[in-house]
């Protein structure tokens, strides 16, 4: 059986700046992979290539054996959910409305049923009481949990997290990580770009250290964090500790 997600020598440049310079990694169902690396190392671009918010230049990304470039982009995005650093909640819709939009318009689910699914997913992220609140009335942590519920409701095969806690105040990070931890335990396949080393250490199956557009090191968290093979990895982890 094909791997759920496979990168094959993916290249991407913006202008004359190479952002990804040959990425080849893969993950299976229920895997949780955390991508770490310095800013500008191409982490977000890597993620955005998967659901083609960014179109890569060369190489291939396959979802369950099928090249994403060959798929209808909307169909692809239905199968791959995404959670954004800046939440990107629809400002004119309530928490519930944010979740139902994709259900009614993309999956053609009737309104009543969509509401039920939305409430179920809001409950999953602990926000039943906030279903009728507008994004501006929510805290950062609550907004991000709505973002997660919105992605979950589409029943994606793979969930992408683009620095989901970077825009949050320190005291709000915990509640979001807690939700993500729960999803991992339920068996959700997740590709996470994050600076939260504690989360990576305790939840990830695999940690990838991305540096300057290439995979500098990759392995199970205990190995990568405790016994990094490369100097560059050690250097990066060292900077984080201080």
């Amino acid at each position, binding site marked *: 059986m094909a791997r759920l997600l496979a990168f094959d020598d993916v290249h991407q440049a913006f202008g004359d700046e190479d952002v990804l310079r040959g990425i080849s990694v893969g993950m299976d169902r229920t895997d949780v992979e955390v991508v770490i690396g310095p800013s500008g190392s191409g982490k977000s671009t890597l993620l955005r290539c998967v659901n083609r*918010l960014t179109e890569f230049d060369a190489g291939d990304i396959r979802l369950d054996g099928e090249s994403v470039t060959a798929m209808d982009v909307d169909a692809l*995005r*239905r199968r791959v959910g*995404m959670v954004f650093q800046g939440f990107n909640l629809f400002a004119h819709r309530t928490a519930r409305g944010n979740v139902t*939009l994709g259900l009614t318009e993309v999956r053609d689910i009737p309104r009543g049923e969509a509401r039920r699914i939305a409430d179920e997913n809001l409950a999953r992220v602990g926000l039943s009481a906030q279903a009728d609140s507008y994004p501006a009335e929510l805290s950062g942590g609550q907004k991000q949990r709505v973002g997660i519920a919105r992605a979950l409701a589409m029943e994606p095969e793979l969930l992408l997290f683009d620095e989901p806690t970077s825009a949050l105040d320190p005291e709000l990070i915990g509640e979001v990580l807690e939700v993500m931890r729960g999803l991992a335990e339920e068996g959700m396949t997740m590709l996470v770009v994050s600076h939260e080393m504690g989360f990576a250490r305790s939840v990830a199956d695999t940690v990838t250290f991305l540096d300057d557009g290439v995979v500098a090191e990759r392995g199970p968290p205990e190995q990568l964090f405790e016994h990094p093979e490369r100097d560059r990895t050690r250097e990066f982890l060292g900077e984080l500790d201080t």
Partner: protein
Amino acid sequence: MDILPLQAGDWAFVGTNWWILMQGLYVTVLLTVGSLLLGFLAGFPGGAIEVYGRGPLRSVVRGVGVLLRGTPIVVLIVLFFFGVPWPDIGAVPLGGLLPLPAFEINGQALLASTAALGLRSAAYQSQVFRGAIRSIDEGQLEAARSVGLSKLEAVRHVVVPQALRRSIPGFQNEFTIVLKDTSIAFAVGLAELLTRGFELFTQPAGQTAVVEIILTVSAIYFVLTFLTNRTLDRVENRFAIPTGESS
């Protein structure tokens, strides 16, 4: 000073001829509503094309917009009046359903004025919408796309509802401008409010009541702009997206 501008007799003159001004008001309201509607119907897609369109279509929309915005409205009105072969619909009867004597207005002048005011308004409304669309965070569109909505669906369900709300202040502004500029249909003799006032004070009996008539006319415009602005304020509050700061 031999002229006392405000004399009781002149106010009485305004009083006995109030229905003439009301007929003018009727036409003014008709013209305002018609022009704004035309302006919205043409301006909204225009604004969307300026943001999302490309190639010749976008260039044409932009170019026409500049022409309409750069030309005085009075010139546009006469150009539309003399330059467009309007069907000869003759005199249009109006006012039957109101407690006003029925009256007729020049149909071609009405069409030309509505077209000129409406298309010029479209050119301005398109800028209002363009700005509102651009003010919506790019991430909202990305989020919509990432749950699988097509670009058109994303624009329709996420961008348009927010852009419309953000357009209300600009639309308010536009309403005031159009209402006041309907008075310029005077140039083609359309019997709107100001023209009716002008007819009143240029007839022999009205010549001492000039100030009274124009003040009355101005007051009507003022009340109209004032009331509508307050109403639109309400509309804006009604449809405002909660900000979390004051609710």
